[in-house]
């Protein structure tokens, strides 16, 4: 629907390099890319910020790809705290409880699969804030000479 808050207040927490490649410098938001963090660690970081009063802008469990399958997670919290909201706190706590109930899967994912998991995570985030995901991909492909 793209009726948004103030994008200047968006802090995108992500471990997905595709989000950074496609969206960095394309809007007023800030991207914090932490590639060494796991899906769960991104959730924990967001939860702690929400507990400290940051607003949660996107749902922590976006997408039907299950949290034990994809390694990637992107979500948006506010740049600065606006006061604790129990509803957001509950969403984050529930998201971690959901993550922990899935049986961990140990496997080596081929690059093509990792790229597709990145793509889905990126399009869910882009769709949430009305960012043109296809245009972002085209820009990156052109820049990389593909």
């Amino acid at each position, binding site marked *: 629907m793209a009726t948004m808050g103030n994008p200047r207040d968006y802090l995108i927490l992500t471990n997905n390099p595709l989000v950074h490649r496609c969206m960095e410098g394309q809007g007023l938001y800030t991207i914090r890319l932490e590639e060494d963090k796991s899906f769960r660690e991104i959730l924990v970081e967001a939860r702690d910020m929400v507990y400290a009063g940051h607003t949660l802008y996107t749902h922590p469990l976006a997408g039907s790809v299950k949290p034990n399958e994809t390694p990637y997670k992107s979500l948006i919290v506010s740049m600065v705290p606006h006061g604790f909201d129990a509803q957001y706190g509950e*969403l984050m706590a529930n998201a971690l409880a959901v993550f922990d109930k899935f049986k961990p899967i140990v496997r080596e994912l081929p690059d093509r699969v990792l790229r597709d998991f990145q793509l*889905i995570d990126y399009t869910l985030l882009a769709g949430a804030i009305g960012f043109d995901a296809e245009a972002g991909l085209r820009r990156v492909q052109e820049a990389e000479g593909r």
Partner: protein
Amino acid sequence: MKLELGYIQIKDIQFSKECKVENGTLYVDPDAVKAFMYEDDDVKAWVKDFSFDIAKPGESVRITPVKDVIEPRVKVEGPGGVFPGVINKVETVGSGKTHVLRGMAVVTAGKIVGFQEGIIDMSGPGADYTPFSKLNNLVVVAEPAEGYQDHKHEYEHAVRIAGLRAATYIGEIGRNVTPDETAEFETLGIKEGIEKYPNLPRVAYVHMLQSQGLLHDTYVYGVDAKRSLTTIINPTETMDGAIISGNCVSACDKNTTYHHQNNPVVANLFAAHGKTLNYVCNIITNENVYLADKQRSSDWTSKLCRLLDLDGALVSQEGFGNPDTDLIMNCKKIELQGVKTVIITDEYAGQDGKSQSLADADPLADAVVTGGNANEVIILPKMDKVIGTLDYVDVIAGGHAGSLRPDGTIEAELQVITGATNEMGFNRLSAR
């Protein structure tokens, strides 16, 4: 609005140079279907080739990865055409007469992303978990054009359109066939309904549509549901393909286009309409990722329930995690308007079934119908024939490394099976 469905029972499908229905057998020319699919420029641009196959109930056949399942239909009287805003022009459907090729489906399959899922087994234990094992399936396997890896949005769109075009072409074959059976469905205007059924409770169906992004979308008259506010639709419009699926992840609880055409909530509400309740309308709402959208859409849903003076609402969701929040928000806000709700969902309760089933909950959600536990583990035997590819079985949702065993059997969660835990209740799993 009144619609008559004429059911033409299809008991067999045969490839032929001639397209016709004779004595319950559909004869279809795959080259003609292919030519009709390729009349679309996007299909031309992104699909290198299609191969066709037929899968019948009881055969040792596995179809995977499944993208969509579609029932061929054709409008024979009344305004508009099937799949309005996508295949036919945008014109309100849901009245007049429509012919249905019942007992069969078009199944689209083929790779789009590397973790795709969706298994339909035509026999064995897996067949019991999918309603599509009971149909004669015309399977269309799409092969992407070169360079599709960098254009997955376009390719997904092309395969979606191709499947709808195939179903439209086949539906047309039934235009001049006399149906084996007919049924009428009618909902009334608000005042008319109150006057006709003054003592029956007014009930609507709140139909939540998956609307999160690539491979997670639903279209209403061609409009991406995430870009719409909550609105009202006549249930008969959905029988003419007003809602189509652009969703191809979470095989067990995705609503295929077939589910939208044959929505069991709609069917059951019609069966009770005028007897135990007054079926008012469907309210369609979305499941967006942005939290303010959820707030707005669920506010709107509850406002409409109040405006329509409902006594009760059935709410169904599609998907896992994020939609659980919309489901609970809808339920809670509708209940607070004084309207009783029943929610329909499935469960991710862990492999042992002991974990909390949904990602969200509320004490007002005290009437729940479940479609089963998607985490339940199942072993699928080897099949003699695979339509599509087994390349993804180790990485699909519910699968794991080693899911595909050396002997050809598959160990995975129910998640992998198309329609296994459908959240409209279009299957047989539940709990009491």
